[in-house]
């Protein structure tokens, strides 16, 4: 059956009727239409004829609509009549508009024909504009989606993140902890709702191979503060947060769609999570992925209030401010409440560690999400804006040259009565058309560029899912293409206004004004192009040098591309005893080392660049009276340092034997050794502990090189390396009670990393030991390296691209003008040559001008750069925003390239033939 319903719905445009009568009408009439169609076919009509027959029987659309609505009761009919009248009015108006549009189209077609006659000129203009507009549009789309548009939540400007800084130990963002959260929840006067959350990984079993699900633990306040409601089912309540409540889960929209094929009956089903059953109680809306794009499931965070203490910092917090409450007022309120947490929830590590004070700090939630990329995107936007200006200057230049060529024609037309303004309007119309075509081309380029950019930006830019060509981008493109069309279209108009077309021709005939004066505008345009190009190139080179500096930093470990990392968590339900856990972890390490091609294997609680660390107190035996200090701690098995090739500077490393015998020893980083004992060697034999008055002290037996744990652009870290298994480490562990962590990250060094089959062997090695352990965060260590410099590499790549385009446009601009000037001066040059000027002298004369223009342009550009690049300081690394090498290099390089580009017209000038030149006059 043909789709008559669709056909009729489009044609008839029926208004809403009582009891949705119009829907029934459509169904019945569609049936009727099908019958008529078949009837016609059965009488031997062709399908086209059959359709025509149906159309005839259906009658004209407005008529039929009016007739059908007559079936409505009288009191509704008046309303429908008004509706129909409005529709007819609109139709009439549209007809008037169409006429006007037709006139415009005719005039446009004429202009298009004119432009088509000069395909080279039009093509170059459209290409240059498309590049300028397209790059601006693509970056603007990012800027708009990521930074300018509000987060997709109700009253999003009242959403804030709750964080804490620890200025004493230089931690800008320590996070939130449960004890603070509950204290704030009970005592605050400024929030409508607040929530606590933490990203974790949950083990999913019984649903294919064991799998680590990226999950987010939340208190019920998180979704309340966001005012988010599940698309089906219910969200968490306080009851779900009770430690004794049955397990519950919410699914992300993407997980529900991709893994459960959008099953409408999903609510009430169960999954096996971390060895226990959890009920799926709902599906969250897609907008949640703005905040947590990679989280697939959400589970309730559960606490026993009696067991809480201030510690375990590293959670996230968010809140919705009450109406009218400012950020400052809210921060002040938290600062007032925060000390209460230590009384309400005592016994944590920071009660005594007096060298650390945590200060609550609030940020707008959007800033928290996109703050880090805001300067980067604005830098790129400024870069492409400069490129667009340059493109406009370039096109204006081309237009000017063309005007020169058309002056005679314009003068004649002006003499026979065309008004200057109508002639000027003709230019303007052309330039607006070219602007529009450039805009269209730019839009196409932007669409392609956007896809490329999204791939390139990958995970380094938030809210990528929201990036798309939307109406505001279209408005932006329309504005800049019309704006630029107007800009370069007005230049020749203004020029003609001043002197009139005839005047222009007259001065030409009388031998011309001095070329310098006549070309002043062109020269100004060349200078500005050179200035803009050098500005952009300086910015790009600074970014490139930053990227280079980052790559040159010694992170403390070596050859990360040959190291595979993976994390394993041994849940209590799998193995309860910690000693047994540690033994399993060791067995897995030994089993991994047996894989062919593996040179060494190690394990640790966290690895460089993974964003995790354990911050805890550190007591030093000969400084016992002093307040404790907070330092980072890491627990390692044999082979960790060797696998990452972190150099041992003094003493020895930790072996399996040390771990088995529970030897109370530690390693420290060189930075920690120096800050406490003055030198690397002095650290050996010194003793440390995590708690005051320990059962036993741990002796420093080795000092290792510093590692840049937080990324190459971050400082080196002072830290302590503990054996994988210890006794009497914490307040609550005794001398005969072993302590080990359940989650460890393995590092595997092999030249086979990345080769096919290797991952499979790694999986089966782990599952040989225990088949219920999912592998998490499996990737080469070099991925983390790449990610840590991704924003710098992204911005240097994009700015580099823009700068290359700028260079090209600048050179083309200079070339075009010099070349045109040479052709204008053919007569003069030929005479000079005839009077005995040397070829070299003529070349010099031409090049001198190019050199002068370039030098002025570059000087202005570098001056601008000097004033502007300090805005980039936050994005630079290892290079000053006024880096003399960069500035000097760009100046010399750009000048030389520009002169080289102008060598071709200079050569032509030198080869001028007197006879030919005179003949052409």
């Amino acid at each position, binding site marked *: *059956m043909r789709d008559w319903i669709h056909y009729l719905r489009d044609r008839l445009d029926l208004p809403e009727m009582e009891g949705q*009568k119009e829907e*029934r*009408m459509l*169904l*019945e*009439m569609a*049936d*009727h*239409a*099908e*019958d*008529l169609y078949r009837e016609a076919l059965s009488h031997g009509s062709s399908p086209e004829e059959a359709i025509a027959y149906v159309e005839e*029987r*259906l*009658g004209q659309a407005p*008529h*039929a*609509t009016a*007739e*059908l609505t*007559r*079936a409505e*009761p009288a009191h509704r009919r008046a309303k429908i009549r008004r509706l129909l009248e409005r529709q007819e009015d609109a139709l009439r108006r549209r007809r008037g508009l169409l006429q006007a549009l037709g006139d415009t189209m005719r005039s446009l077609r004429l202009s298009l024909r004119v432009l088509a006659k000069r395909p080279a000129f039009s093509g170059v203009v459209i290409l240059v504009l498309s590049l300028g507009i397209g790059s601006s549009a693509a970056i603007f789309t990012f800027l708009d989606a990521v930074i300018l548009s509000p987060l997709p939540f109700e009253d999003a400007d009242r959403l804030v993140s709750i964080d804490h800084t620890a200025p004493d130990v230089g931690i800008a963002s320590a996070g939130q902890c449960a004890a603070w959260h509950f204290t704030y929840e009970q005592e605050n006067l400024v929030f409508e709702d607040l929530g606590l959350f933490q990203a974790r990984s949950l083990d999913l079993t019984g649903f294919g191979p064991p799998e680590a699900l990226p999950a987010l633990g939340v208190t019920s306040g998180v979704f309340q503060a966001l005012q988010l409601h599940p698309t089906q089912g219910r969200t968490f309540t306080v009851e779900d947060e009770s430690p004794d409540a049955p397990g519950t889960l919410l699914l992300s929209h993407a997980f529900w769609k991709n893994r459960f094929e959008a099953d409408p009956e999903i609510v009430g089903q169960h999954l096996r999570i971390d060895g226990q059953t959890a009920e799926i109680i709902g599906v969250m809306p897609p907008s949640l992925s703005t905040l947590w794009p990679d989280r697939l499931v959400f589970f309730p965070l559960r606490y026993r209030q009696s067991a809480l203490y201030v510690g375990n910092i590293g959670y996230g917090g968010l809140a919705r401010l009450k109406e009218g409450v400012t950020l400052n007022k809210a921060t002040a309120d938290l600062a007032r409440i925060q000390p209460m947490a230590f009384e309400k929830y005592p016994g944590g590590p920071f009660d005594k560690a007096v060298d650390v004070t945590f200060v609550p700090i609030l940020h707008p939630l959007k800033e928290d999400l996109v703050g880090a990329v805001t300067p980067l995107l604005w830098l790129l936007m400024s870069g492409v804006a400069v490129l667009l200006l340059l493109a406009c200057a370039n096109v204006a230049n081309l237009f000017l040259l063309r005007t020169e060529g058309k002056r005679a024609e314009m003068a004649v037309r002006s003499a026979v009565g065309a008004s200057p303004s109508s002639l000027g309007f003709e230019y303007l119309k052309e330039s607006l058309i070219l602007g529009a075509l450039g805009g269209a081309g730019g839009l196409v380029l932007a669409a392609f560029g956007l896809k490329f950019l999204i791939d390139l930006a990958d995970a380094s830019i938030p809210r990528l899912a929201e990036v798309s060509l939307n109406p505001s981008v279209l408005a932006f493109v329309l504005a800049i293409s019309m704006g630029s069309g107007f800009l370069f279209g007005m230049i020749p108009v203004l020029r003609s206004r001043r002197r009139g077309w005839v005047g222009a021709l007259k001065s030409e005939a009388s031998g011309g004004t001095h070329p310098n004066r006549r070309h002043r505008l062109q020269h100004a345009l060349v200078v500005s192009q050179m200035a803009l190009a050098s500005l952009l190139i300086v910015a790009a080179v600074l970014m490139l040098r930053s990227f280079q500096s980052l790559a040159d930093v010694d992170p403390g470990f070596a050859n990360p591309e040959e190291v595979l990392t993976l994390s394993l968590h041994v849940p209590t339900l799998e193995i309860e005893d910690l000693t047994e856990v540690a033994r399993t972890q060791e067995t897995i390490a030994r089993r991994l080392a047996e894989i062919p091609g593996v040179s060494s294997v190690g394990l640790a609680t966290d690895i460089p660049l993974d964003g995790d660390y354990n911050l805890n107190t550190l007591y030093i035996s000969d400084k016992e009276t002093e307040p404790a200090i907070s330092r980072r701690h890491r627990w390692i098995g044999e082979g960790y340092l060797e696998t990452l090739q972190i150099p041992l500077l003094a003493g020895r490393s930790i072996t399996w034997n040390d771990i088995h015998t529970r030897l109370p020893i530690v390693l420290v980083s060189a930075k920690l050794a120096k800050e406490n004992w003055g030198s690397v060697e002095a650290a050996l034999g010194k003793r440390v502990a995590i708690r005051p008055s320990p059962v036993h002290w741990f002796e420093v037996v080795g000092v290792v090189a510093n590692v840049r744990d937080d990324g190459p652009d971050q400082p080196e870290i002072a830290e302590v390396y503990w054996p994988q298994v210890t006794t009497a480490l914490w307040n609550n562990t005794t001398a005969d009670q072993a302590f080990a962590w359940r989650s460890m990250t393995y590092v595997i060094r092999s030249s086979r990393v990345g080769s096919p089959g290797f991952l499979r062997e790694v999986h089966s090695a782990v599952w040989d030991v225990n088949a219920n352990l999912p592998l998490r965060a499996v990737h080469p260590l070099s991925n983390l390296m790449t990610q840590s410099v991704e924003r710098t590499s992204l911005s240097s790549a994009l700015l580099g691209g823009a700068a290359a385009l700028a260079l090209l446009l600048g050179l083309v601009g200079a070339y075009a003008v010099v070349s045109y000037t040479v052709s204008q001066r053919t007569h003069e040059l030929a005479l000079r040559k005839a009077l005995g000027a040397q070829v070299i002298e003529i070349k010099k004369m031409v090049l001198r001008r190019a050199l002068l223009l370039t030098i002025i342009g570059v000087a202005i550009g570098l001056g601008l750069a000097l004033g502007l690049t300090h805005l980039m300081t936050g994005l630079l690394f290892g290079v000053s925003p006024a880096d003399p090498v960069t500035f000097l290099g760009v100046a010399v390089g750009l000048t030389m390239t520009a002169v080289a580009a102008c060598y071709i017209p200079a050569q032509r000038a030198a080869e001028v033939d007197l006879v030919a030149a005179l003949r052409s006059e």
Partner: protein
Amino acid sequence: MFNAELKRGSMGLMILAALEDRPRHGYEIGKLLEKRSDGQLEFRVSTLYSALYRMEDRGWIKGLWVEKPGERRRCRYSLTPEGKKILAQQRKEWAAFAAMVNQVAGVGHA
């Protein structure tokens, strides 16, 4: 063929008559009227349905969606008891009216 006003005035009666022997759907009604008039009566689809809906609103006929094996789901109209009464009454009125018109306009005596 015939003036639209004329057709519309008598349409109710013709539809009621078409439904007298059994329920029919819209297309069948249209075809039957066409056949009974030897092809002289052709309705636009919208005219037919507009009339059907008005008659249903007045309670003369009743539409019912019926699905039969091997056939499309169709809405079939049948006469209500009220409709039967109206049919009988309109037939009488129309006969009287036609006779009167003939007499006044002198159609039969030409």
